[in-house]
């Protein structure tokens, strides 16, 4: 390889085109590493779908109301209704669950408030909460992924 700006630009393009963070080339004589300060590897969280994070993943364009978080393996707890998410039963109470909490099927994991009525949302799965995708006060739509359980 010839270490010139043209070559470096080519490598940089490869990084960008494929959403990579780093590329290393070593031909025995010369070595070059180009690293890009990339944000966290991100993927659009698809409702009711658990996708293992691949080694290299392309950054997906932002959707209107999608939450961008590292996608974890696990089963989903989705919202059965429209409303506002609350992690605990009242502002000064402890949250029902946190990342790492053990839950059984039927345990209350959060509240969705609709028209001044507090609705307890129960876990559909047994396991450990691996991720909570929403925060207190977020507006929630039908079918939106609230948490992952493994």
């Amino acid at each position, binding site marked *: 390889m010839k270490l010139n700006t043209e070559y470096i630009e080519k490598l940089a393009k490869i990084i960008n085109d494929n959403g990579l963070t780093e590329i290393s080339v070593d031909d025995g004589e010369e070595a070059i590493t180009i690293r890009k300060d990339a944000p966290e590897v991100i993927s659009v969280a698809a409702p009711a779908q658990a996708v293992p994070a691949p080694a290299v993943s392309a950054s997906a364009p932002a959707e*209107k*109301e999608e939450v961008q978080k590292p996608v974890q393996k696990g089963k989903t707890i989705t919202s059965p*209704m*429209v409303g506002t998410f609350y992690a605990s039963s009242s502002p000064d109470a402890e949250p029902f669950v946190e990342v790492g909490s053990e839950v059984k099927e039927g345990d209350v994991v959060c509240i969705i408030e*609709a*028209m001044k009525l507090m609705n307890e949302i129960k876990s559909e799965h047994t396991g450990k909460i691996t991720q909570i995708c929403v925060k207190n006060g977020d*507006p929630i*739509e*039908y*079918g939106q992924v609230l948490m992952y359980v493994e």
Partner: protein
Amino acid sequence: MFKRVLIANRGEIAVRVIRACRELGIPTVAVYSEADANSLHVRLATDAFCIGPAPSVDSYLSIPAIVSTALTTGCDAIHPGYGFLSERAEFAEICDMHGIKFIGPSAESMRKMGDKATARKTMIENNVPVTPGTGIIKSVKELKEFANQVSYPIILKATAGGGGKGMRIVRNDDELESNLNLCRQEADKFFGNPNVYAEKYLENPRHIEVQIIGDSHGNVIHLGERDCSIQRRHQKLLEEAPSPAIDEETRREMGAAAIRAAKAINYEGAGTCEFLLDHDGKWYFMEMNTRVQVEHCVTEMISQVDIVREQILVASGEKLSHSQDEILLRGHAIECRINAEDPDNDFMPCPGKIDGYFAPGGFGIRVDSHVYPGYTIPPYYDSMIGKLICWGENRKQARRRMYQALKEYVITGIKTTIPFHQSIIEDEVFKSGEFNTGFIEDFYERKNKEG
């Protein structure tokens, strides 16, 4: 003016309302079921919320889901469109309770007109002609007396019904009791109210309806009539304004009657008074629709009044944009409802993916539709995919424009009723303007004789 409006509907009317809001500079929130994620109204709105699974009862008819969405997104008004919750008084009340303006009449107005027996009574009190009829029927004897007094045929109707449902025609004394019982049972099943009343049944009348708009300052105007006689199984297929059967004097009388009716119930917003025109020229009040209607477009074309815009303005407290004197009805407009149905197969609904889509254009051509190439029509809702409206200086010109526009209109991948509309537009009886609600039946009889 409202700061954010939620549109509690889908399809072409949701698009229509979103456009009117955009023109007024109001941000919009669309609601959609899982089956409508790719629908046009979702893309056009400022924001969109999924409110439930495909079945309407769990989504577009879910009052909690819709009101919750309005509250969490900070909407101060909801436009209900037509169908769905647009004529549900309790929905209007719930909006009111939560400080959300329901763009339409009050729950009270809706109830007065929604209960058909009460509506008739209100009309009688206000000198609006009604078909000879009864109040809620208490006995078979009472019904028999009435039937023989006005002479058969008579029609039994559910007081809580509408939209052509829960009705039975009775032609003689022998059929009377059994039909009354069945009608009561159906009324209870469909509308939750077994009360039934009777009217003299007019054979193949013309269906003439008058558009009115009222504001919160006591002003009510009418925008002329529409002729909606071309119906198949009580579903309108084609509408036009003005009616070929109505002269200037009758128009004035009907308009005045519709305004009296609206003022009697303090009506606010857009509404329609439906009348039946008998063969002898007499006309009678049938029912009032307390919402914007599918066919509002033909009235817009001849009056140059944006009815949906007016709905939003009056709901926000503004006075009507025009006085009755300022309303000038010009020309003639015809609307064809384009449905995803197979006219050669008993109008079976054909949901599916639209491959090619090319809409007609030009002067006097208007297309109100929510479909686009690649769009998949979901099977859960009604089959109307768009409306083609043509305006002309007179009926002949409107008809010829419609003829050309239908020829240009191409939708592939699904079956549509475009070819069916083409045959109606060219039909001699339709051309003459002399038809009534028996048109479609007669049309098929003539076609079968030819073929």
